[in-house]
């Protein structure tokens, strides 16, 4: 196989930084000779700029600029990276600490070396000699401090402190590693929240202060309806055409009615025969906790007789944290029912509230309760 690339291919590789140093140099020489090639590179770069601009906008944390500013001030005038790194390091507090430690360490090594040589040749210096040695360094190439009980204590202290510093360094390294891992996880989780095809679970609980999130157990029928609807959504259960196209008639699958509200037909999936609701006729719904999940741009809510009255007309109004509202109405008999509510503006990860108005056909009484998104998703 040859390693031949046309100048056009070479230009792409140049822009993408895939040429090695020598090929890059050759290509730059070619560019000097060819206005056409220069223009192509510029156009490719502009394409790359467009691709970069297409990234979702994010606000950089303030500390980035602080660090850039410090680094630039530290470098001051333009100097090669090598020395400036050392200058920067020296200016930091760690350098001072490290220098002190290094001094102590050299001192300790020399002292120990001196000590051990004295063991090999036990000729202790007299007080006079010690004084002489310290005061006239030209007679001794290495000054040798005397070992006194005080110095021994200092050495032990030094050893203990060195160990402590090493231990702290290890702990800091571990913490940095953990922080980095957590940060990576956070970014991944954040990205997943925006994923359109991921199922997110919610639990709607009453807006009233008395509401206890998660206090009510879901009935077996409701749990089954949720499981069926998840299977339905994931494609494990066959999708009925009528249900998926948003026809008003509920489709019963495995003892659960599936009703799709449709973006173009959200007024009423089934026209009610009962009178419109009035505020004064409000009573409490039987059970306060409604399970739901979001899939794509739809909210799927499971209902049964433990959470809404049977033989009633239900009007849904869903509002996301962006203030977008959507909804529709259905007739609820006595079969567990799964309702798909489209949220055209998309379901925001920040929060969701839903109100369900309910009124019965027999008495004409109406009941309104607002359910808010629980933090227990």
């Amino acid at each position, binding site marked *: 196989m040859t390693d031949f*690339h046309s100048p*056009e*291919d070479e*230009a*792409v*590789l140049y*822009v*993408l*930084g*895939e040429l090695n140093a020598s090929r890059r140099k050759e290509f730059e020489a070619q560019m000097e000779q060819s206005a056409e090639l*220069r223009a192509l*590179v*510029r*156009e*490719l*770069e*502009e*394409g*790359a*700029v*467009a*691709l*970069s*601009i*297409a*990234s*979702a*906008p*994010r*606000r*950089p*944390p303030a*500390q*980035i*600029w602080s*660090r*850039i*500013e410090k*680094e*630039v*001030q530290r*470098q001051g*005038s*333009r100097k090669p*990276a090598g020395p400036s790194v050392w200058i920067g390091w020296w200016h930091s507090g760690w350098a001072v600490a490290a220098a002190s430690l290094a001094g102590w360490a050299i001192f300790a090594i020399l002292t120990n070396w001196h000590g051990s040589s004295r063991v090999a040749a036990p000729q202790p210096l007299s007080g006079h000699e010690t004084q002489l040695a310290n005061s006239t360094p030209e007679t001794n190439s290495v000054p040798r401090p005397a070992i006194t009980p005080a110095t021994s204590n200092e050495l032990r202290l030094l050893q203990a402190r060195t160990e402590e510093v090493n231990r702290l360094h290890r702990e800091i390294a571990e913490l940095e590693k953990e*922080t*980095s891992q957590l*940060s*990576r996880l*956070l*970014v991944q989780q954040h*990205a*997943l*929240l*925006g*994923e*359109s095809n991921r199922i997110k679970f919610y639990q709607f609980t009453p807006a009233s202060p008395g509401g206890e999130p998660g206090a009510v157990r879901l009935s077996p029928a409701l749990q089954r309806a949720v499981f069926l609807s998840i299977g339905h959504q994931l494609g494990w259960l066959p999708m009925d055409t009528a249900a998926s196209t948003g026809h008003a008639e509920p489709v019963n699958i495995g003892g659960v009615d599936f009703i799709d509200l449709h973006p173009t037909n959200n007024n009423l999936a089934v026209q009610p025969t009962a009178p419109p609701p009035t505020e004064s006729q409000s009573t409490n719904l039987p059970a306060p906790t409604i399970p739901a999940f979001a899939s794509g741009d739809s909210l799927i809510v499971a209902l049964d007789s433990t959470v809404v009255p049977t033989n009633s007309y239900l009007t849904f109004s869903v509002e996301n944290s962006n203030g977008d509202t959507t909804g529709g109405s259905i007739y609820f008999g006595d079969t567990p029912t799964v309702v798909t509510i489209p949220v055209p503006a*998309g379901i*925001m*990860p920040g929060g969701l509230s839903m109100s369900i108005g309910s009124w019965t056909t027999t008495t004409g009484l109406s009941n309104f309760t607002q359910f808010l998104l629980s933090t227990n998703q």
Partner: protein
Amino acid sequence: MAGDSHSLQITEDARLLALIAGGDQRALAALYKRQGGLVYSLILRMLANEMETQEVVQDAFVQIWRRAPQYDPARSSPLAWIIMIARGLAVDRLRARSRREAGHAAYEQEMASLEVELNGALYAQREELAAACAHALNRLPEEQAHAVQLAFLRGWTHEEISRGVGEPLGTVKARIRRGLLALRKIMEDHHD
């Protein structure tokens, strides 16, 4: 007019780079204020790691500070020059990570993550030009958009993309070139 505004933007960035080349730290601050968000968003999209992104953005602007005297307005636009510096540092990070098996599964996984980032929840927050660019990317033929993104944003080589997608190397090269040129054309049309 969009075109005039675009020219002004380029002129201002070029002016700031010239000042930075002369050692003006306030000009660097101004340039960061103008383009720091874009660089940060791009690098975060490439690395999907907050800590690494912060380090790369910091390194990129320190490099801009040091390399500003080398900037040649005849060669590149200021923004392209800035982006290429930052992107190069990010690709170094990507390549320092454990080497991927550039098979079809890895290809699918990368494309899914890029799709989330491009069309995710923040789509609506883009400014006009950014929205136009995202829209343009969505309008490219799918294979072209995939190849361009893998090469530029994930640092995949042409050979790796060819293996991942199971198509000849020549096809992949042509796709990347055409994709980049098409994106540039759309941006140019937007400015006109």
